[in-house]
C-alpha cells in the first residue's frame, strides 16, 4: 500500500526511536526506504518543524528526535487507531 506523507514522516521518526533516539543519515536513508533526494526533503521538513535535530559529530552527523517529534509519533499512533476504529 502506498505510504502517505504522514506515514513516511512517522516511519522516519520511528527509525530514530528504534535506534535509541539518534541515527546516522545513512541508516535513516536505509530505514525510511526513500531516495536520497526525497529523504533530504523530508529531513529539511522535519528539522524545520522541530521534530528532529541535526547533531554534528567529529565525523559526520546524527539526527536526533525531539520531544515534539516523540509527541508527534504518539499522536500518529492515536490517529491510526482512530482511522482503524471508524474505518476511515
Amino acid at each position: 500500500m502506498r505510504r502517505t506523507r504522514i506515514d513516511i514522516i512517522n516511519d522516519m521518526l520511528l527509525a530514530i526511536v528504534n535506534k535509541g533516539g539518534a541515527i546516522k543519515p545513512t541508516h535513516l536513508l536505509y530505514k525510511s526506504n526513500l531516495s536520497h533526494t526525497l529523504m533530504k526533503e523530508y529531513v529539511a521538513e522535519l528539522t524545520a518543524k522541530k521534530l528532529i535535530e541535526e547533531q554534528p559529530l567529529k565525523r559526520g552527523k546524527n539526527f536526533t528526535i525531539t520531544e515534539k517529534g516523540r509527541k508527534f509519533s504518539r499522536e500518529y499512533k492515536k490517529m491510526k487507531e482512530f482511522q482503524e476504529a471508524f474505518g476511515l
Partner: protein
Amino acid sequence: MANFILSPAWFLGIDAGFEVVTMAVAALIALTSYKFYKISNMKKYFYFGVAFAMLATAFATRVLTNLIIYYNFIEQNSFGIAQAVHQAVGPASNFFSTGLLGYRLLTLTALLGIYLVLSRKAKTSKSVKGLLMYFVLIASVFSTQVTLVFHLTAAAFLFFISMMTLRTYFRNKSKKTKQTLAAFTLLMFSQLIFIPAIYIPIAYVVAQVVQLAGFITMLFTFRKVKNAKN
C-alpha cells in the same frame, strides 16, 4: 399538527440529559478528528469532524428546544396533560418547528457526511452531492409533518454506514471496529424504535436508551483510541 412531545411525562428532562451525553460524545469525536486533520492535513478527518460537529449541534438544538417546550409544559401542567401539551405547543409552535427542522436537517446532513467519508465518496461530483443534499432537505422538511420520514431516512443512512463498518471489520478484524459497528447498529435500531413512539410513548423511552447505548459504545471506542500507546 405533529405531536411535539412524544415523551411520557415522567421522562421529560431525562431525555434532555441523555441527549447532552450524546452531544458531548459527538463533540469529542469532532474535536479529535479535527486535531488529526491539523496533524495530517488529510481532508477525510476534516469532513468526518465536521459531520460529528453537525451531529453535536443537532443534539444541542434539540436539547434547547425540548427544554423550552418542557418548561412551558411543566408551567401549565395544572390544566391536565392533554390541555397542557396543547397549550405548551400552541405559542411556542413556530419556535419548536424551527428547532425541530434544524435538528433533523443537521442530523441527516451529518449522517450523509459520515456516509460519504466512509464510502470514500467524498470526492463525488458536486451534482451528485447537491442531489443528495436536496433529498436530505426534502426529508427534513417533510419530516416535520410526518415524523416517520426522518427516522426512516436516518435509519437508512445508519444502515449503510453500519454495512461499510462491517466491511471494514471483515478486512481488519479489529475489536475497535467491532465496537464502532455495534454503536452504529444500535443507533440504527434506535431510529427504528422512534417510529412507533407517536402511538406508544414507552417506545420513545426505549429508543432514547438504545440511542444513548450507541453513543456510550462509541465513547468506549474513543477512549481506547485516546489511550493508544506506542
